[in-house]
């Protein structure tokens, strides 16, 4: 099927998504760890527009942007669907994945969890709205994909793991079990799945890293 390479960063939720998808499909790949402070020539050549991870290279052809990569992986390797087959269900999954992506942009996370004042309150409120909507959306389901991990679950690993660890790193909580019991149950369920738990960074290492990058701008 051609050689597969993934350019990623160990702490990035975006590059982990790509690895989860490839492992779900049983695809062998070479992983290249990027130093984001000193990006490789190859990465800059493969993703000149955004200069970011993840990048998937398949048979020499590069694809960037994690959600675009997920759809590509789903279309090339046909076993075990990531997106549903029904067009309406696919539209539904794409809607939620894009919504999560929009709400959890880097700057909003920083504002919500680290900064102070009006900007912080506004960002925190937007994230709360996301969690409220996800709490409603997960009702009656084990996972967003139903019984199996799907497109939204993979996208939402940022909520399941990164958000709780960001909260631990900075000492501020927005996602709590009291307020969002169903969403937290979903996170527990997701993090137990083999393909997820074997593809996540070490928690302690990630907390230390998050503490470092989130707090440094505000010193």
């Amino acid at each position, binding site marked *: 099927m051609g050689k597969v390479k993934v350019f990623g960063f160990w702490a990035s939720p975006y590059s982990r998504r790509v690895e989860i998808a490839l492992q779900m499909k049983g695809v062998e790949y070479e992983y290249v760890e990027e130093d984001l402070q000193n990006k490789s020539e190859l990465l800059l050549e493969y993703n000149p*527009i955004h200069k970011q991870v993840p990048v998937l290279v*398949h048979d020499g*052809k590069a*694809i*960037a*942007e994690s*959600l*675009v*990569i997920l*759809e*590509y992986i789903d*279309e*090339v390797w046909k076993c075990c669907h990531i997106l549903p087959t029904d*067009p*309406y269900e*696919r*539209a539904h999954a*794409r*809607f939620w994945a*894009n*919504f999560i992506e929009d709400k959890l942009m880097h700057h909003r996370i920083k504002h919500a969890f680290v900064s102070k004042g009006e900007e912080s309150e506004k960002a925190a409120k937007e994230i709360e709205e996301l969690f409220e*909507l996800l709490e409603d959306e997960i009702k009656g389901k084990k996972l967003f994909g139903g019984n199996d991990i799907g497109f939204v679950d993979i996208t939402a690993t940022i909520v399941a793991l990164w958000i709780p660890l960001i909260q631990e790193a900075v000492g501020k909580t927005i996602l709590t079990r009291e307020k969002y019991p169903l969403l937290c149950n979903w996170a527990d369920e997701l993090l137990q799945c083999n393909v997820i738990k074997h593809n996540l960074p070490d928690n302690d290492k990630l907390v230390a890293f998050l503490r470092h990058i989130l707090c440094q701008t505000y010193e």
Partner: protein
Amino acid sequence: MAKEVKVLGKWPSPFVMRARIALHLKSVDYEFIEESMQPKSELLLKSNPVHKKIPVLLHHEKPICESLIIVQYVDEAFSTGSSILPSNPYDRAIQRFWAAYLDDKWFPAFQGVSRAPNEEAKAKGLEQVREGLSLLEDAFDKCSNGKPFFGGDKIGYLDIAFGSYLGWVRVSEKMNNIELISKDKTPKLHAWAERFSANDAVKDYMPETEKLMGFAKMLMAKYQAAAST
């Protein structure tokens, strides 16, 4: 008999235009419901409770929101007419990549130009917009492979994603007395823009520049009034 497909939209919206072009390409008959947005209708609020925005596509009363998601839905749900996304997964990924770039980076920069607080900020914004157009000129080269559209012989996903912004690009060019998509700097895009706008699947939905400019002026006045309070 009620039509099985409905589109909630408004004539100036590039996002609504995307849905209409897609339905035209697939030869799908639909009812267009013009939303005044002031106030937003019950149907809109019920169909898109999360964003409360247009366009919304209703297929057998089931709502689909977000313009690019609607375009992909139309491509997948209807087998009539021509395909919107290419069949090759890599080509599909490239078109999705550029459509995401347009919506996440390029259009916000473009909107930023009209909202710029001073001339310096405006100039900086325009520079970003032009850089983006230069990237899109290259992308056109690679995607079209010598053919008339990003999608090849026929209009496709990326043509729709980008082309829907052309009305607003023309308004910006007129209001600021500048060229954005120019014959000398972005010749391929310039030619493509004309072909796209004249296409049967597009021309009925592309708003007239003068009419859109009037709408833009009204929006800017509202924005400035809100910003100064």
